[in-house]
């Protein structure tokens, strides 16, 4: 598995909010070790009568040894929350928050330059590792099954769809990572693929891309060097140019943003590209059986 494991200790930034409370409880139910929360002004209290709340991430880390953070604060405070986590020395930051202004993202991306911190998201479902029973995210846990397939995706519910197809085919997952639908996500396909390639628990990877940007092409350049099979789907083949399709990053501007170009790049890099989103699970089953991966 990658990024998280059974030693991951999570601090929840903005834990006292409604959405944060709901999802944090789901994470704990699944097995995630949530060791701390942070809500300025509520330091010293206990969240849900179980988890200590701190004034700052630095304090939370010092007192509880948190190793990962999940951010639920509103968009206008989210960039500050990311940098606060980085400054506190948290190596993995999962930012669920949607609608972060691009100018803010430019700033924290620059801030991350030269650090070893991984930011997953913003505008993402997070990370789940079924073998570790560790979930740092908002995905429905029930559809997942422990196994050896890595999943990396720019979407939320489309990832759930793919995972459900995999599970129904009997294909379990090592780790599923939703990197988010923003134009400047904290991490990208290539970096996650690199981790899957190096991970002994992962035998093959499903990549779920979409229109906009050129991240799939950059991933393709890395896929060429990978030893593990990659099965890819790119959403938005039927989307018109110049219109934003829900995700801030999903907009075709120029050639490279089109699904066709992305699929071609992935295919020529050696990935198995699936055109029909209903057949991702079945294709995975066929490919993996033939390569004796599972």
């Amino acid at each position, binding site marked *: 598995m990658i990024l998280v494991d059974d030693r991951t200790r999570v601090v929840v930034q903005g834990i006292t909010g409604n959405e944060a409370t709901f999802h944090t409880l789901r994470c704990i139910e699944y097995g995630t070790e949530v060791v701390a929360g942070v809500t300025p002004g509520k330091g010293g209290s206990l969240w849900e009568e179980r988890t200590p709340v701190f004034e700052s991430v630095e304090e939370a880390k010092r007192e509880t040894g948190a190793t990962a953070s999940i951010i639920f604060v509103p968009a206008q405070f989210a960039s500050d929350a990311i940098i606060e986590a980085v400054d506190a020395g948290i190596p993995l930051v999962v930012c669920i928050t949607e609608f972060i202004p691009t100018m803010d993202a430019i700033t924290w991306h620059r801030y991350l330059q030269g650090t070893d911190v991984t930011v997953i998201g913003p505008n993402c479902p997070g990370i789940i590792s079924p073998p570790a029973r560790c979930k740092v995210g908002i995905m429905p846990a029930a559809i997942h099954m422990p196994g050896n397939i890595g999943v990396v995706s720019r979407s*939320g519910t489309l990832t759930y769809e793919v995972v459900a197809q995999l599970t129904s085919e009997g294909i379990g997952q090592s780790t599923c990572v939703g990197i988010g639908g923003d134009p400047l996500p904290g991490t990208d396909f290539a970096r996650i693929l690199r981790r899957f390639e190096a991970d002994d628990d992962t035998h093959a990877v499903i990549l779920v891309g979409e229109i906009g940007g050129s991240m799939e092409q950059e991933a393709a350049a890395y896929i060429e060097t990978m030893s593990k099979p990659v099965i890819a789907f790119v959403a938005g083949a039927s989307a018109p140019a110049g219109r934003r399709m829900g995700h801030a990053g999903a907009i075709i501007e120029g050639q490279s943003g089109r699904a066709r170009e992305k699929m071609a790049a992935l295919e020529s890099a050696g990935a198995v590209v699936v055109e029909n989103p209903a057949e991702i699970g079945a294709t995975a089953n066929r490919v993996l059986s033939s390569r004796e991966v599972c």
Partner: protein
Amino acid sequence: MKLHEYQAKQVLSQYGIPVPEGHIAANQQEALEAARIRGGKSILKAQILSGGRGKAGGIIATDCPEEAGHAAARLLGNSLVTGQSGPQGLPVNLVLIEEQVIPDRELYLGLLVEPSRKRIVFMASARGGMDIEELAGTHPDEIVSVAVDPLTGLLPYQARVLARALGLSGQLAVQSARIMRALYRLFVEKDCSLIEINPMVVTEDRGLIALDAKVSIDDNALYRQPEIAALADISQEDPLEQRAAQAGFSYVKLDGSIGCLVNGAGLAMATMDLVTLLGGRPANFLDVGGAADELRIRQAIELLLDDRDVKVAWINIFGGILRCDVVAKALLRVLEDRHPAIPIVVRLQGTNDAKARDMLNSGPMTVMLETELGRAGRLAVAASGMTGKKRGAAS
């Protein structure tokens, strides 16, 4: 959010960037008066939020104020169809009446956020006046791009690189550096997603002037840009898109007949893709979003039903946070209220899906339930073929 040309030029002007003198007019009389300020010749530019106005007849050179008044009368109140506006075109409610500027040379200057570099990038070319995509195709070597570090802003040495790309030296290079610094400041301070000055013209007597300007603002930042947000012109949006925007949905009107209601942008695109792959045509992209509740689902269903192009509705929900039974409840309520005539394909998966299916199984016959994505897609496409004919015959 896109700004009209006249709004973009006002903002540029606030930042000290030279633009042609001009006035805005909403009717013939105002146009006549504005053209009289100019005296003789002037340029009329239809203010619509679309490119390709020139070829579509939306930019008119006139020789005298009276001619300008008549040209304005022809444009105002009508729709202008351009290569980028869609078949209905966009309504012209305002025209910009500007002085005629005689350019020595036409340059291109653009700023955008480049996802792979995660920076604001300046694009400059001495070949202005043509579309940048086209230029990138025909003369890629004649576009110079410079990424700006947010720590430093545009550096003097970078401004020199850009000035050289624009073929400017001496005083014009100094002026271009000033303009570029101002543009960068504008981009950051107003949370832009795009600024395009095409053409930036070199004039003999007045140096550089921004002859045309496109400015787009990052929608996610509008909360902190109240002055910009107030410039929004909803007349330029499709009525269904307006309604969706007010309800908080991501919605894009398309030209097919299968209305799709989905939660999540990726799944919504995949749903459209599947429909298309199976030979159908989606009527829209619609992502109800992660925070949807019963009311919002109802509003979304009604939006589909109110679209006269929709011949089949396909509800495709993967329940995570959003519970399937909430969707079922919303749907049953709408069915009860409106008794829609079109077939509705429902595919619910995830949280509480069994409960939802039980609820719908005891509901009206117009709902076709299917849990597997591919089969649900085939149902929707098949139904659109049937009903398309049936309704077409009936109308």
